[in-house]
């Protein structure tokens, strides 16, 4: 037991930029490798049968099988937990898998979820159709009205769900107000913080209980890998009588009471040892490594993303062929007060606007740009453009489309880190086709 190890754990609270580089990593004791090693292995040799039993019984933290845990993935998990201010995290093969697992861990058939209606289309599909198949009821609410959340609560409600910055409408969730309504009813607030990243907003600091990310976006930051992660604050009382599925003896783990036995770590233990074990959807070690590379520069990239995004939004706002620019950081945005409170460093880099000429106008604009990439992703360092009504949101009805802030001519941008004058020059070329 080394003196030097003692010195490193003196209880100092390190800054965000330090933690985005270091949190979660222990220097590999065998090799001294400075980079995080990629542990490309399915399984792990046990010291002896007693150790194996202790690992499978969760009596000791031990690696068993990479569907459930992997040392490279674990560095990514702890780093995200540290940046979000949570007690831990569990990574998944995609953001959508992370979200499904977070919900399945606390839901049972007959339960009810209250959700913001301003969501990513893939999330709408998951909540409406997948949860519906599992006999979970759903109520959509106007996220901007805390009273609507309160009125939607039923005796069988188990969670509130929303996005920090709605995709693509740019609604900013009043985290503190909605968390307060959730907690009044002993319910957890689940927040998708993908668009803000923990650099711009940490929902746990405002009362969120579970934070979900598509790591595919700004965390990875380079459009290389699909992945997701669930973070828990560790402060929610799962033994409050409403969550038998978390607190009661688990038939899927020989009668273990996850919340009683593991306390603040109980939900995440169950998420890993049962839900990830049983659903799969495991993040690959190589993808975790690529996400770690992304996280090392998260704050630097986000500063540039938000500066470029605001400049592009301001350009569009004064453009005669653009309307309804949804960037919540614009001076005229109805969300300005919430941006100042929750997103003081910038209101993200994904927003939409309506192109003149409706559906055809939006498509012509996309045909006319050559630097912006026309694809279905956001959060790449490269600038991206898409027409939601014909792509990401095409499964939604007109009513759902409207509720999600999407109209026929809506074009969504994910502003990258290029020279901003080049981005504006290229959009101008696109508008030339719309004229």
């Amino acid at each position, binding site marked *: 037991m080394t003196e030097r190890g003692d010195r490193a754990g003196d209880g100092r609270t390190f800054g965000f930029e330090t933690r985005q580089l270091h949190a979660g990593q222990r220097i590999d004791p065998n090799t001294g490798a400075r980079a995080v090693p990629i542990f490309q292995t399915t399984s792990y040799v046990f010291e002896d049968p007693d150790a194996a039993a202790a690992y499978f019984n969760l009596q000791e933290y031990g690696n068993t099988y990479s569907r459930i845990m992997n040392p490279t993935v674990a560095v990514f998990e702890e780093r995200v937990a*540290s940046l979000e201010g949570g007690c831990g995290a569990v990574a998944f093969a995609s953001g959508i898998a992370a979200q499904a697992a977070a919900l399945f861990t606390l839901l049972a058939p007959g339960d009810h979820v209250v959700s913001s209606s301003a969501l990513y289309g893939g999330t709408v599909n998951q909540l409406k159709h997948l949860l519906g198949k599992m006999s979970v009821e759903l109520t959509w609410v106007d996220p901007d009205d805390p009273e609507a959340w309160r009125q939607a609560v039923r005796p069988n409600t188990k969670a509130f769900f929303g996005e920090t910055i709605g995709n693509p409408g740019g609604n900013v969730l009043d985290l503190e107000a909605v968390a307060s309504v959730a907690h009044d009813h002993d319910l957890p607030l689940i927040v998708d913080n993908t668009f803000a990243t923990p650099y711009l907003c940490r929902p746990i600091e405002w009362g969120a209980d579970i934070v979900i990310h598509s790591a595919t976006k700004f965390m990875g930051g380079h459009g290389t890998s699909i992945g997701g992660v669930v973070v828990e604050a560790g402060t929610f009382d799962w033994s409050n009588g409403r969550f038998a599925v978390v607190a009661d003896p688990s038939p899927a783990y020989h009668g273990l009471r996850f919340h009683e*036995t593991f306390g603040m770590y109980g939900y995440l233990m169950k998420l890993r040892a049962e839900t990830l074990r049983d659903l799969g959807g495991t993040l690959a070690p190589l993808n975790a490594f690529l996400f770690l590379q992304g996280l090392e520069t998260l704050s630097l990239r986000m500063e540039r993303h938000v500066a470029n995004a605001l400049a592009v939004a301001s350009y569009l706002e004064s453009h005669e062929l653009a309307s309804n620019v949804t960037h919540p950081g614009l001076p005229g945005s109805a969300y300005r007060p919430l941006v100042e409170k929750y997103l003081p460093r910038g209101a993200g880099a994904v927003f939409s606007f309506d192109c003149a000429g409706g559906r055809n106008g939006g498509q012509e604009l996309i045909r006319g740009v050559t630097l912006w990439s026309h694809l279905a992703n956001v959060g790449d360092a490269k600038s991206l453009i898409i027409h939601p009504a014909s792509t990401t949101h095409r499964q939604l009805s007109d009513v759902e489309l409207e509720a999600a802030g999407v109209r026929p001519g809506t074009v969504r941008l994910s502003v990258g880190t290029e020279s901003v004058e080049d981005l504006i020059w290229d959009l101008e070329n696109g508008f030339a086709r719309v004229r």
Partner: protein
Amino acid sequence: MTALERYQDPQAIQRVLHTARTIAVVGLSGNELRASHFVGLYLKRRGYRVIPVNPRETEVFGETSYASLSDVPEPVDVVNVFRAPEALPEIAREAVAIDAGVLWCQFGVINEEGAQIAQDGGMTVVMDRCLKVEHARYLGRMHWFGFNTGRVTSVRGEVQ
């Protein structure tokens, strides 16, 4: 610093983890699904001598279970408490009487009077912290499960 934080000093916690050898677990259950059993077994597997103190058990992990701390026939470094908070003052008095160095109270075992008795008796007090979690944080493998240990270090450590 809140009242509780006085009993959660990271330096003091690490000193305990590094120097303790014998840990008496008050309220150690023979039921392998109880938190006390998880913690006791973990500590035993990590090389500490674990002594059960629980009048309801005769033997846990093959070790004799004693009815009270004063019945333990060997020196104790740490008294680790899994009991209702109101039981703490009496346990603290016994812990001082047997000359144990540390009173470690698990999550929720919070009782200021008990802590004061132990401190007045010269003991180090840790309160509302789990001995297993703190060991796993500083010396163990909690980071393998994606938990936030709060640790940041570029020092090459030992094989765990």
